[in-house]
């Protein structure tokens, strides 16, 4: 699994990459997610650009694509019941599956160790 500096995770599953947000991101949203806006299947997204929004009671946070590619599938269970995202962000709370167009972008993402270090540097645990 790899990570973005903006607290998304990416997990390679064969030809597609599954994308979600990290435990830390969920904590920053007070674990109270009330709405998830995801792109339509087939949409082309670019690394670093917003592909959706997660809303908590008080705040909204943009989702940034960790990789460029085409949206292959979205997690409609989470968009129907957004509270599931807070309960299990790295497994059943996944958000979209991307078919990458620039596979080399994967290598530029943070490893688990680098992401952990990023959180420590930012003063979180």
């Amino acid at each position, binding site marked *: 699994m790899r990570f973005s500096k903006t607290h998304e995770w990416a997990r390679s599953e064969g030809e597609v990459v599954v994308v979600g947000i990290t435990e830390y991101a969920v904590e920053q949203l*007070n*674990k*109270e997610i009330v709405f998830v*806006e995801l792109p339509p299947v087939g949409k082309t997204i670019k690394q670093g650009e917003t592909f959706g929004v997660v809303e908590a*009671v*008080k705040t*909204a946070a943009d989702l940034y694509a960790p990789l460029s590619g085409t949206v292959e599938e979205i997690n409609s269970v989470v968009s*129907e019941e957004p509270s599931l995202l807070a309960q299990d962000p790295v497994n059943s709370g996944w958000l979209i599956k991307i078919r990458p167009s620039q596979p080399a972008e994967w290598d530029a993402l943070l490893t688990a160790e680098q992401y952990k270090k990023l959180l420590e540097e930012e003063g979180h645990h």
Partner: protein
Amino acid sequence: MLDIAMTEKLRTILYSRHKSLKAAMTDFAGWEMPLYYSGITDEHLHTRSKVGLFDLSHMGRFLIRGKGFRDLLDWLTPAAISTAPDGKVLYSFLLNENGGVIDDITIYVGRDYAFLVVNASNREKDLKWLRRFADEFPTVEIEDLSQQLGMLAIQGPLAQNAMEHVLGESFTPCPYYTFQEVQSQELPPAMRSSLTTAVRDFPALLYSATGYTGELGYEIYAVPELIQSLWDKFISEAPVLELKPVGLGARDSLRLEAAMPLYGHELTEEISPLEAGLGRFVDFTKPVSFIGREALALQREHGVQQKLVGLEMVGKGAVPRQGCSVMAPEGGRVGYVTSGAFSPTLRKNIALAYVSPSHAAVGASLQVEIRDRLWPAGVVKRPFYRRSQ
């Protein structure tokens, strides 16, 4: 993230208690305040069903006294101050000449003083405004007690029980929007002995049946050491009282469900109380004039340009927030959202918005533009939530 500015923020007398309760903190009007302790939704629902405790010590508090203090306030506010009975609390406004709201305030009318509670963000502006006009009332004294007093709110169906438990015989329930003074000799002995300071011409403790949640409850004012000891007692008895501390996150969602205005959102210097649907707090019949009266009388005669409405979003979807455009069903911008949230009690997205009067009727269909997409909404009655008793 930690930064230098963080260390310069103002902290209330209960700051260390919030930290020891592991509250998530937020910046509010320059104050480092608790956003939530257990979670916004949890605290919100707990206040609706049991009782919540709030630190409101960041709010501004002024004491106005001396011969003519009622005359000064009669001129500065649209409330009937001179005829208000002692012990009454009035919700009112400081208005400019155009009828715009400089601040929304509560006024505690005592025999020898008026006690004003104002928004933290407007404290200095209000004080300047009051002192500007006070020059014409040389016998009236205005004192900023914001540092010398702390403030708590106890809100919810079990609020009275919590008050009785903690204040003992020094508490007697009082009617809605009235207040009671408690002198130091009337306090329980343990609390009396904690007192080390006193405010001239002000009781050791003052409480009122007021609040900002849509629940019954009380607000309490006292010197810092007494507020701290009251907080500690409420928290240590919390399991018995079924009480939870509540942060500013739920304070905002509670007031929104109750459709109570928040300064900087529903009220600004460009918005009048009539536009905000608060005309019942403007007394055109009082025997003396007040600042802004002429402008408001014209608005009343010719009608307002925009009206505050409650919006309920249709179905699940994006949450409307301050600044979102409100559109007519056939397109065309007819207004803007001032506050919006997912309502924990109703489990729906709700908002307050200003719209043109032709789209303000209850039942009207509208749309809210959220991130370039239109979401259907309907105008509903305010408040969104009304307590059952």
